[in-house]
């Protein structure tokens, strides 16, 4: 029952969030200057008659509330409409890209969680050079924006060593893995460093706790102490942060998608905003918001699993 009410309240919250987002985004885009005509005609001069014809064809001369309600009505009917620029169904356009972004974000999330936690734990348990090196490395990592990481990786691994391709997302699993390794690494760099730092701090804190001392004094083998008493407790804050970091990757993917010419939702969102392609911007925004809410809900569930003191409640934290 608790799980059902949790899910129901989350769903209701999601619906309200989506409705509000759609209104705000639509309004913002409507108020922002410019129009898709400049993109359609390449910004080159065309006759006034042509401009009028384009405006009529795409309903660009209708008032805001009218066009928003019109859009909303269609969406509720399951139809996201057609892209102004590509004259193609929005659902088709998005389906073509959602897989790439999902792969990229999942790959980066995996890198963040694995390397972040491992480095953090190593750093906490092995004092000395290892700890210092990891501290220095993570400092650089946190301070490196993903586009800078992208440029460095391309010059080293593509132009220098010829290990990875500079552009594209690849087809098929292995090819994708090969193409998206550099983008994922660039995307994951700062998050990994952050999670490593946090894991280190949390583990250090746990190591200094009384229950750890007690466990050690009772002669429990060190690996077991670390595993049961240090890591498990340290994972609570790490999960929260890692979850939020991963959710943030969805937005951060824009930068690396552009840098590596990867055809994903993020770069398409940017392009569509530039082109004022209303239906596409709306659909992608809603999708991203939904994904964000979903990831956060998953984090909440994980939280409850790790820490028995936490109960799933209807209200979000």
């Amino acid at each position: 029952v608790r799980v059902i009410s949790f899910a129901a309240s989350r769903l209701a919250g999601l619906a309200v969030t989506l409705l509000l987002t759609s209104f705000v985004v639509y309004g913002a885009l409507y108020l922002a200057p410019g129009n898709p005509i400049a993109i359609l005609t390449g910004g080159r001069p065309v006759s006034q008659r042509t401009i009028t014809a384009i405006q009529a064809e795409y309903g660009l001369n209708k008032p805001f509330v009218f066009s928003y309600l019109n859009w909303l009505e269609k969406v509720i009917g399951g139809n996201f409409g057609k892209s102004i620029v590509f004259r193609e169904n929005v659902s088709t356009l998005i389906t073509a890209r959602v897989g790439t972004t999902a792969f990229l974000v999942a790959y980066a999330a995996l890198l963040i969680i694995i390397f972040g936690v491992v480095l953090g734990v190593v750093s906490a348990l092995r004092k000395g050079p290892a700890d210092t090196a990891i501290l220095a490395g993570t400092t650089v990592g946190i301070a490196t924006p993903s586009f800078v990481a992208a440029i460095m990786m391309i010059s080293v691994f593509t132009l220098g060593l010829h290990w990875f391709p500079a552009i594209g997302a690849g087809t098929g699993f292995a090819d994708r893995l090969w193409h998206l390794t550099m983008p994922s690494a660039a995307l994951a760099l700062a998050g990994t460093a952050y999670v490593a730092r946090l894991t280190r701090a949390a583990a250090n804190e746990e190591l200094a706790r009384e229950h750890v001392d007690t466990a050690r004094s009772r002669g429990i083998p060190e690996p077991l102490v670390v595993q049961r008493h240090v890591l498990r407790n340290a994972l609570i804050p790490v999960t929260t942060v890692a979850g939020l970091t991963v959710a943030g990757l969805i937005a951060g993917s824009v930068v690396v998608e552009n840098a590596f010419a990867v055809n994903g939702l993020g770069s398409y969102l940017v392009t569509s905003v530039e082109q004022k392609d209303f239906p596409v911007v709306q659909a992608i925004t809603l999708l991203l918001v939904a994904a964000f809410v979903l990831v956060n809900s998953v984090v909440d569930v994980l939280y409850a699993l790790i820490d028995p003191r936490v109960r799933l409640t209807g209200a979000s934290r």
Partner: protein
Amino acid sequence: MSEDPRQLRAGYLSGHLSRRELLRYAALLGLSGPALTAFLSACGSSSSTVGATAPAIGTTVTTPPAKGTVARVNWGLFYEPPGLDWIYCYNYEENTVVANITESLMRLTPQFTIEPSLAESFSEPDPLTKVYRIRQGVKFSDGSPMTVQDVVFSLRRNLDPASYWNFAYVNVKSIDQSGQAEVTIKMKQPDEVFHPLMSTPAGGVGKASYVQAKGKSYGTPQVGALGTGPFVFQSWAQGTSIVLARNANYWDTAHAAKVGQIHFSFIPEESTMTTALLSGGIDGAYHTPYSGLSKLHASSAGKLYLGKSMIFTEIIVAGPSGPLADHKLRTALLLSIDRQALAKSVYNNGATALKNTVIPLAEWGYGQAQAKAAWAKLAPPKVDLTQAKQLVDQAGAQAKAPMTIATRASFQRYIDIATIVQASASQIGLSVHIKPIAPNDYGDLFFSSKARAGIDMFISENYADIPEPLEIVYPAVVPAQQYNYNNYNNPKVTSDLTQAIRQTSDPRRAALILDAQAVMANDLAALPLANPAVPLFLNKRITGAPASFCYLYYPWARDIGSSGQ
């Protein structure tokens, strides 16, 4: 005016890294401060030596001929074309792709002449009648023959104002079949710009039954396009690639494609495009980023060409009033700008300076000798601050008023140019304020007087579609024409150009335009700056592509093949 989407992107990147408070460590992405400083210092040393092997700027038209076939070529585009229906193809990359699929009645050659293509011949029995004899034996890529009905249907599509090429048809009265293999176009008034435009998509031919059956989905990623060209549309993975395959039914057998497949990728980021070319991930691209020219030139991965182009950069005077209404101040401002340094720094040695005309010498497809002689008589683009200051003094109170130059936000070349204009103007005591305009809004400056309110001048990088200077000049300087924003009106110029547009003889038309050019060189209705070349990079394994600006309308990929290396 040509909006490079790759440039628009950078501005949006900042602020997209927002995460929760807890995680606020996002990077600041910006290029204003340091980039500008670096830029200005580069301006100072712009006379830096160019290596002995530096490519010729803007004169190359072809590359060494292909020696053999190639199975696959990867080509880079700097944005994804919105569609491949030729009547909506009106900008760089959509034209780059569609030129290989949909051919036109006439063909723009790499040398900037107009030659027969799907039309076998052209005649003009009187100034109001244009007759095209349609080539027989031409097949669409599906094997069906191209008919006169297809031609009539295709040309008539442009009579709909929704066609971006509608402007070419403003003086057209009717388009009809006039014989078994003949189409006659009747004009409302003489218009010598119409015929050369038949080498662009304005004269494109598609298969009537196919286009009608597909309706609005013709040219979309799912349906693609069908034409007579050397390549066939094969697939379009939205956002990723467009694939064209060799057309086995191509009618022009002497020029059948030597490339089996051409894969187009979309690479908006400038540095990514440059890297992809350097690493061999992409075999070639037209209009490669100017920012990467020195790297591409130095690379052993392939060769960089800086082809002949019809692109021109100018400052447009935005309205009839304000300080720039004063001829003295326009002249003074242009005298203060170092156009040669600008061509080198803004375009990274990929452009040449314009003299006092917006018609690059390269644009003359006819009357070249006359144009060359006239060009020689124009004053060299020199800086003369003494004369400029005198003119400013003579202008009096008008000169004290600050001026505003509009620039497109996040478009580095325009920002660079605006900065140069501002710095140059301040040297002669004029004050210029830079007003950045949202990328999407910038195009409105060309259409709406409301958008131009409060703006004295704006920067434009535009191109002529055809080697006919009238296409650009006539609507910009004849009174009451669409792009004559500052109500420029010189009876001599108006008279010359209105005669020219009716003049069927090439030498006489050239003479009239050049007479007008000489007058305009003094009047300065707009301030000409540069003639950017077309950067083309080809991997060492391929060659043959034309190097000139013709690639927007000429089926360029048919000439590519193996270099033998």
